[in-house]
């Protein structure tokens, strides 16, 4: 059963002077529990595709079906709810809120779900335990290493118990050891929880450890 289904996706960036086709007629299906990696050279549209799947960007044309929902027709509030409950994001540059400590960063998605403070803290502690950062709960992001920041971002993506995790070069800013640790964590989430993961990566070795790899070149899926 497909949890992600893209049909005829096109994305064109328009400026006054020119048009750039970032994605061209992309058709993609991802099954529930699959760990898909997207590869390709810089500027080929990998991140754009991930953003469109994650409803962070709008496709110029085509349809997106996520968890059985036609996503293109959702209104702002429904979109927000969908992102909050069904999707978890992991970014290359972590995107943690520097003015909040680790546990508060992790709790954020639940804040928008109106979960009580006690419950938020309990769940945040649970996921931080899982990513091995329970001893850093009161630290500020600036006091953590890159790998630890990415673990916090993973914990934040996990706390809402999403169906799909979207990771945009999650190890791009990490050294190989930390990168390996993060990959281990993602594989574990896929294997043990059966979570669907779509990951953009430049790393062939990491891509080989996923269940399927697709490749892009100049906005087109080539493999």
């Amino acid at each position, binding site marked *: 059963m497909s949890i992600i289904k893209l049909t005829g996706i096109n994305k064109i960036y328009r400026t006054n002077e020119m048009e750039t086709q970032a994605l061209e007629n992309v058709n993609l299906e991802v099954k529930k529990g699959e760990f898909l990696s997207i590869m390709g050279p810089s500027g080929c549209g990998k991140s754009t595709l991930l953003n469109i799947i994650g409803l*962070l960007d709008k496709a110029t044309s085509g349809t997106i079906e996520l968890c059985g929902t036609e996503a293109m027709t959702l209104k702002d509030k429904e979109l927000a709810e969908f992102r909050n409950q069904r999707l978890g994001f992991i970014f290359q540059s972590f995107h943690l809120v520097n003015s909040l400590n680790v546990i508060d960063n992790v709790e*954020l998605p639940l804040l928008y779900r109106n979960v009580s403070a006690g419950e938020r803290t309990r769940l945040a502690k649970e996921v931080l335990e899982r990513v091995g950062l329970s001893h850093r709960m009161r630290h500020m992001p600036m006091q953590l290493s890159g790998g630890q920041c990415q673990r916090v971002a993973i914990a934040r993506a996990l706390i809402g118990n999403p169906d799909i995790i979207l990771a945009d070069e999650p190890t791009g800013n990490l050294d190989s050891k930390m990168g390996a640790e993060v990959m281990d964590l993602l594989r574990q989430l896929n294997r043990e929880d059966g979570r669907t993961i779509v990951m953009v990566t430049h790393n062939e070795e990491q891509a080989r450890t996923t269940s399927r790899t697709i490749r892009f070149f100049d906005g087109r899926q080539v493999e």
Partner: protein
Amino acid sequence: MIKMIFKQLWNQRRQNGWILLELIVIAFFLFTTSAEVVRGSIDYMLPDGYETENAYLIKLKEGSKFRYARREREIRDSIFQSNFNLLLLTIKNRPEVEAVATVRDDSYPGSGSHNSNGFVSDDTASIRIKASLYMTFIKEGTTDLLKVYGLKDARTGEPLQLAEAKLACPQGIVSAAFARQLFGRTDVIGEKVHLGKKLPEGSNANNYFEIVGVYEGYKRSNFQAPSASTFILTPNSYGRNTSNHVITYRLKKGVDGKAFRERIMSEIAPDFENTPTAIKEILSFEESLEWFNSMLGIYIHYRYTAVMLFFVLLCVFLGMTGTFWVRCRARRQEIGLMRSIGASQATITRQFMTEAWMLVTIGFLIAQPLIIHYIHGLEWNVIDLTAHYWQDSKTWLTLATDALIYILMVLIALLGTWFPVKQASKDLPAEALRDE
């Protein structure tokens, strides 16, 4: 949500410190410029205590030829009285006139003279108040101060009616503030009030008066709060000097005041030109107040204050909206992140607005000791005659001004936040997240 915002503000205290400093300066600056405006506006909004429409006053002077005769002391008084009464009756008998009254020269709205006195009540001699003392000269069956001035009963708001006198002494009417200060109540008809101090029984029958009416506040200027005041109704003229006497009159509805004034000047004034009661000028109550306000520099003062306030508000508006605008734009990436993890546009707007409100509230609260220090150190420019109005209390005025500037600051901060946040939260999260 509020707890989370508070944590965020606290964790960014160094950056927010500058904003708070700006807000403290703004709160203090706004307070110092608007406190007087608040007080002045409230004073202005209080009822005048008289009706200026159709009410006029005639100022007198000694006619040029009379000056040679004034050394004749014996005849001077009777000449003055007879001429004065004749002029009064001449005005009163004109069909256009509804009522006339004669008052001392400090006892009409906008008079440049002022007289205040100490008063004690008959049974609570220990309480002594200071109040404006006005004088009206009653010519039985001729003058009607209540009608000319349009004084209102403090309790009913209806035109004031005099109660029947019970004592063999002069009568007086007092303002509600006078009654409250001296007796603690406004139901004081029939009470005895002593001028200056209470003298032994029978020593001076004119040293006290009986209250026969309580009127609403009476303003000397329409820009000032009414002082505690009293009108003593006396049959005797105060002195024999022309400059101490003013004739006031109210015209019937629909009469052209300007034309009537011209008629008096052409038809009546020449007959009195060489008497001790020659007509110097005729002013409407509005003109009298206008003159008084100009003389005191009230218009210039308020114009200056209004210009100052306008510039302060402009600076505050530009400064605050700029700060909050920049603050929001600088957090575009954070807004993108918030949207990516499930915040709707409305949630983000609400969060930023709450944050702006909290910042303003904190800055405003920190500024309070400064404001309190300022207001207590201020030389209070009020005479104690008007100190019975709440806006003259430093505490109440501080609270009222504080409320006003707080609302202003919150509104400006919300406005400065709403536009950029609304704009930023409309951006696609993917674009916002790319923002560096």
